[in-house]
């Protein structure tokens, strides 16, 4: 391994050498038993590139740690039992009500256990932050092309983590056995039953009989605190090992190439920043939990199949799965006496399709480009217009579904007819992603054009000089070599013609991806532009005498 390290100018002091002696004793003990020196040699000075957009994956990891800590606290007091008891706790509005033990113990955590409400709220808020961070991280990776070879499999692992995060969240907020969570389970039950042939069997197996039964909470508890976290933990481990194997991507910049990593070593800078960031995330989630109530299930009351209130929404990351159910028309048909419930099967197929296209995108894109190089330089999103436009269209589709799941709240807030609003979302589901795709793509191309001009001509200074012949010339401030490099370093792709090993389908796909392209600046173009600028500078200097200050500025000095 060749690592270029800046020399450290600081001398080690007495305090440092005492530390070193202590470390040597402990280090010797560990190395003889764990071969620790080899690991330290491999890892301690490993270089990680630094950029604010790389922070979201860490944020997801840290909120998961907070979930484990706060969740462990909750398991000490939560009783996942559906046995019915009469509530006699301090919350007066529910005294005397028949509730399940799960509900009662959740009430105990909230109202009676010291710090219980805080840890409960931290657990729920951390779950929301976890999913936000996963989504933002995923789309950072998507928009910068960081999923490309050799990271396709790690993309799939990350995708699985996102899906598992939804399962963890759903199984978690179903546990308190309140009206809201019970109705969420009821929807799951209805969806399962709609699956042809096996649906009712699946529902009976999941619920241990008819809905709601007395098995579902204990079962979800095992899923929530054992199966899913174990799977998440295992996948996170693989995810991170692969980050080390691949080394992190970095943005193109001066000195940064596809064959190196430029950044800070784990010890001390990256470690201190990343470790510190854990505490920052922890602190912010705790602050939110101290000040902002979440899932006040005592207001909803214990689950009973009969009541439900308007404004029933799941946690934000499950909203999109509810939106499709609200938008689909009541399509259902009967064939040979058997029912096919398209009003549930179509939304489920759409959800599956949206997830599948996201999971498979790295493979779709590499099939189109045929680019089999390793990619360690992250793209700027505007340099990949079709990918970026697709990503934005996906997000818009997702958001339309999520917004549709709040159509009742929107209707009330904006005094609109819920029927009109539903129709609006139905149309938007088809139209908005297409518009978003088109607009994003054009914006990316415009930005490419702008950056191209910037690389060639430098920054506009808003200072205009009139020459003796009456010409108006704006003074441009040239970019430094380092600034320019970031604008000219990227790769450029072009469409292929069918034939010579290119199928007509692939030719069409490459045309769709790369038909509209802004070619990057070439060295010849830059030379020409600089020559032109030199000539222009000559003219400007002649007119101004080399003094570019405005008359007003001259008057001041």
């Amino acid at each position: 391994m060749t690592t270029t390290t800046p020399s450290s100018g600081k001398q080690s002091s007495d305090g440092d050498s005492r530390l070193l002696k202590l470390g040597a004793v402990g280090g010797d003990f560990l190395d003889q038993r764990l071969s620790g020196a080899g690991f330290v040699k491999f890892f301690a000075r490993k270089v990680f590139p630094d950029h604010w957009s790389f922070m979201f994956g860490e944020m997801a990891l840290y909120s998961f740690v907070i979930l484990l800590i706060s969740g462990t606290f909750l398991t000490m007091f939560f009783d996942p039992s559906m046995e019915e008891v009469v509530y006699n706790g301090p919350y007066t509005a529910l005294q005397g009500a028949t509730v399940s033990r799960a509900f009662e113990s959740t009430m105990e955590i909230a109202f009676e256990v010291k710090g219980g409400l805080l840890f409960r709220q931290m657990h729920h808020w951390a779950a929301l932050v976890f999913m936000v961070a996963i989504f933002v991280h995923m789309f950072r990776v998507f928009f910068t092309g960081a999923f490309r070879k050799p990271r396709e499999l790690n993309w799939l692992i990350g995708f699985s983590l996102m899906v598992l995060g939804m399962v963890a969240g759903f199984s978690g907020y179903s546990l308190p056995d309140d009206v809201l969570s019970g109705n969420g389970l009821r929807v799951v039950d209805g969806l399962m039953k709609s699956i042809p042939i096996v649906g009712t069997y699946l529902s009976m197996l999941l619920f241990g009989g008819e809905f709601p039964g007395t098995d579902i909470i204990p079962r979800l508890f095992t899923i929530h605190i054992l199966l899913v976290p174990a799977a998440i933990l295992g996948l996170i481990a693989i995810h991170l090992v692969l980050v080390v194997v691949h080394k992190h991507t970095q943005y193109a910049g001066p000195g940064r190439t596809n064959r190196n990593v430029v950044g800070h070593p784990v010890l001390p800078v990256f470690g201190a920043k990343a470790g510190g960031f854990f505490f920052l995330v922890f602190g912010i989630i705790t602050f939110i939990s101290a000040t902002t109530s979440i899932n006040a299930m005592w207001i909803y009351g214990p689950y009973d199949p009969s009541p439900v209130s308007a404004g029933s929404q799941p946690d934000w990351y499950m909203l999109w799965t509810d939106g499709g159910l609200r938008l689909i028309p009541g399509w259902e048909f009967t064939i040979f006496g058997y029912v096919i419930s398209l009003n549930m099967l179509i939304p489920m197929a759409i959800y599956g399709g949206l997830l599948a296209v996201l999971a498979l995108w790295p493979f779709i894109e590499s099939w189109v480009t045929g680019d089999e190089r390793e990619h360690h330089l992250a793209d700027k999103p505007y340099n990949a217009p079709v990918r970026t436009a697709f990503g934005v269209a996906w997000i818009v589709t997702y958001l339309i579904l999520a917004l549709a799941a709040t159509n009742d709240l929107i209707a009330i807030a904006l005094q609109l007819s819920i029927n009109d609003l539903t129709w609006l979302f139905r149309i938007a589901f088809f139209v908005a992603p297409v518009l978003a795709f088109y607009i994003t793509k054009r914006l990316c191309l415009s930005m490419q054009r702008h950056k191209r001009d910037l690389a060639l001509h430098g920054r506009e200074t808003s200072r205009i000089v009139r020459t003796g012949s009456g010409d108006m010339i704006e003074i441009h401030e040239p970019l430094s070599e380092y600034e320019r490099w970031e604008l000219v370093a990227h790769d450029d792709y072009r469409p292929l013609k069918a034939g010579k090993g290119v199928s007509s389908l692939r030719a069409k796909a490459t045309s769709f991806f790369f038909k509209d392209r802004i070619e990057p600046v070439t060295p010849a173009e830059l030379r020409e532009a600089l020559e032109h600028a030199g000539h222009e500078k000559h003219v400007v200097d002649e007119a101004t005498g080399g003094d570019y200050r405005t008359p007003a500025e001259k008057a001041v000095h």
Partner: protein
Amino acid sequence: MNTNTDGSSPSRVSTLAPKEGGGFPNPGLPPHSPRQADISEPAEKRAERLVAFLFLLSVAGTVVFIAAYFLVTPLDTNIFAEEGTPRALWWSNLVTGLGLAIAVFFIGAAAVHWAKTLMPDQEWVEERHDIRGSDETRKIAAEMITGGLAETGIGRRPVMVTAMVAALAALPIAVLAPLSTLGPLPGNKLHHTFWGHNPGQRLARDHDGTPIKLSDVAMNSIFHVMPEGLTHETPHHLEERAKAAAVIVRIDPRLGQNEESMSMGVQGVLAFSKICTHVGCPVALYEQQTHHMLCPCHQSTFDVTDGAKVIFGPAHRPLPQLPIEVDAEGYLVAPGDFTEPIGPSFWNIHKDK
């Protein structure tokens, strides 16, 4: 690593455009500009003091947290509010939470400030290595696998291999046995409700279980009802409630558009299942003016003047109707079950065994 300039391999043509003129040379890392703490001793001391202060803030937060855990509690001692009141809970959550937030946040703030101001900020450069193994490693790996497989004799003993495949294929089927014991078979449980199993039940108010007289039901009113005999003592009472839940509404009989539906009611009093035929939420909202019932979950809308037909939203089947009569004492009773299975549609909903 594939180092072809255009990224293509012999088998695939790449869309990568070759760089005209070979592209630009990388100018290398820009010169490093020192930070204040690198060049000024007072600035360095200031940063050091600030980091120490931030760590001490965290200590203060920890003290607040521990103290609040015992002095600002929801049920016992609470120095800000009366014990056991909602205010006490609010204060307990706020003060313990703020203490913990300060305790953890400022450790992070101190560490990050330390890293940014006092640790070296010159960037390191590390070379990447090919992800793939060297040709030699790959050759050895391939030889190991082929050698190991040859030692098993997998290629030469087809009978044994076939038997192994059979064993490995059969074993997963065994999983089905324990899986099947997770729950009973559906049978026709979903086709019938408590009303059908116990004909002649009075319709009782859901919230207090008292039976409803025809004369209690005012025009345009709605009642949420359960069978009178379905109580907390009933076995599987939640499952029964999940299927038996119903509503009764009273509309002006002249508004009725569906004779069959009206004939199953009494003087414009009609009883319908409360469980939505879409995914099973309770259809809890009733618009008195339009006589529409609305499911708050996904907004399926049912017209009770027309046999609870779906007029908007994702549901397809009308809400099943519960035929009702009036008994000798004037109470509403249900002589039997709903007209069809309640709740979300399923595959064999029309095949009652």
